[in-house]
């Protein structure tokens, strides 16, 4: 391992501490402010209260936005699981013309600016599909999220598939298992944790997506991030925004934490 002098260690430690502070203190402020009694966020907090949590809990627009976020997130995750896993298998198990191109095309949407994806899908929905009578509506938003969620499942599953010893599948078939039994009893358990980790990451990615959602959400439909954006224009609701933001933070942190633990658990077993 790399050996560092005491001074270097101290300097590096300080840089890391500053970087982490810059990332997490603002988030921390949001969480703390959500418990402020004041209508406007201010520092220091004069009085603590859960009043905004109570208001947020009974707010009809927030409930609707949360429901939309969950539905879109789950829908996009299901699409990502099915397509991402199938593509990962195709690329890992078979050789075919254009294999590298397919790999690139699947991964590209995650690197593509959301605004490009958003505009492209919006144009397609409104100027191509609608004139010929296809109303994608809500489903169009789910598909839009699916485009970049696939990568999460695809990358995780592909990485794990590459590490499966191919002879254990042969051993299974040799011992009399049909291809289906082999998949269920041997292959799937080998990449199950990568599959779940990919699903969680896909959901987290969809849950806080803004740009693509703006361009593909049907009129009058808000997801949580969209609702927050709209509220920013009305500062007297700022504390309500802090509550919702806190929920989004938790909803993003927990899945990432769980998926990391899953990935680590699988590594340790090998």
């Amino acid at each position, binding site marked *: 391992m790399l050996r560092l002098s005491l001074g270097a260690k101290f300097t590096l430690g300080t840089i890391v501490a500053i970087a982490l502070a810059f990332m997490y203190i603002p988030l921390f402020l949001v969480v703390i402010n959500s418990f402020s009694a004041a209508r406007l966020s201010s520092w220091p907090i004069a009085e603590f209260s859960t009043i905004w949590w109570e208001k947020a809990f009974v707010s009809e627009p927030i409930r609707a936005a949360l429901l939309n976020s969950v539905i879109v997130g789950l829908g996009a995750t299901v699409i990502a699981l099915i397509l991402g896993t199938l593509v990962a298998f195709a690329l890992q198990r078979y050789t075919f013309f254009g294999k590298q191109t397919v790999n690139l095309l699947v991964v590209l949407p995650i690197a593509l600016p959301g605004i490009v994806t958003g505009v492209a899908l919006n144009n397609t929905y409104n100027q191509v599909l609608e004139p010929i009578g296809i109303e994608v509506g809500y489903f169009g938003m789910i598909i839009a999220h699916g485009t970049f969620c696939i990568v999460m499942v695809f990358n995780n599953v592909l990485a794990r598939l590459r590490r499966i010893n191919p*002879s254990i599948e*042969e*051993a*299974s*078939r*040799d011992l*009399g298992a*049909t291809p289906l039994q082999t998949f269920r009893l041997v292959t799937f358990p080998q990449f199950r944790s990568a599959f779940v980790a990919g699903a969680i990451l896909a959901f987290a990615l969809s849950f806080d997506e803004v740009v693509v959602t703006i361009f593909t959400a049907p009129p009058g439909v808000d997801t949580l991030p969209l609702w927050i954006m709209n509220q920013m224009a009305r500062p007297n609701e700022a504390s309500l925004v802090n509550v919702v933001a806190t929920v989004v933070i938790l909803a993003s942190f927990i899945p990432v934490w769980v998926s990391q633990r899953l990935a680590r658990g699988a590594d340790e*077993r*090998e």
Partner: protein
Amino acid sequence: MHASAQQAPSETDSTPAPGAVSLAGVSKTFGDFTAVEALDLDVKPGEFLSMLGPSGSGKTTVLRMIAGFENVTSGSIHLSGVDVTQVPPHARQVNTVFQDYALFPHFTIAENVGYGLRVAGVSRAERATQVGVALEQVRLSAVADRLPHQLSGGQRQRIALARALILRPQVLLLDEPLGALDKQLREEMQIELKQIQREVGITFIFVTHDQEEALTLSDRVAVFNNGRVEQVGTAREVYEFPATEFVAKFLGLSNLIPAELSADGVQSSVRPERVRLLTADTAASAGTVSLLGTVSETVYTGPTTRFLVDTESGVRVIAERANDHHPSAESAFGRGDRVRVEWTTDHASQIG
């Protein structure tokens, strides 16, 4: 071959003997590369047959075709008299012990051993009984609840064997099963394998690149080279009477004697231990090939000493003598000594 077995029913009557494996004109190509070329091979029921050859000689491909993991490009494979050329691996009455053991990492040892019974729909209780017996056979009952990665190489090897044998296959295929073990453990496992094969009495087809292992274990050895079988025979036959230069060289040290020096005017091979080393003034005996020469090097190997003799005919001959008790061989001759080397013509094998 297979057809004739059906036409002339032997003592097994109309049912072909279970455990017979017959390959007829089997070829396998991967793109431009020919891995196996027009192979004919018949394995008798209950036989321990080794497929011996260097890596890339096609032996593992043949094993994988018998197991069903690879399709044949042409030709046919019969198991116990039934054409299985198009039968998928899970429907063939053969089981395989893999080179890397291929134990299922997420199953316990007991679940690994019972896997074949499980997918066949055997009840949990019956499975537990059979797995218990199988583990006892390989003396590993104590590790039933462990995971494969918690076992040593030798233990994994025995579990792989138990897992394959629990289904009572007609033929067991073994793909260099001892390759990953250290020398001492390998020799123990060789003995154990031989005993198990005798107990269960089924056909073993054993792939190895270790000539000593093949000679020690097998009833017959098929020597592979470049996708072809160079020679099939008992250990004694392929060692003492190699049919080709490749076989002579691959199975230990060999002296290749050019045609003009051989008794019958054909190129031949003589094993070093069959070469007698005599003082130069000894007269040549009848029925031998006898050459005069000078010792250019002596090599002490432990049980034997090898003498490299440059003969007057220009051929270098290696003679090997056991370092057995009185006047020990290693002191009998030294570098620069004039000697006579000779061998009985019976001990020379013509090489085609």
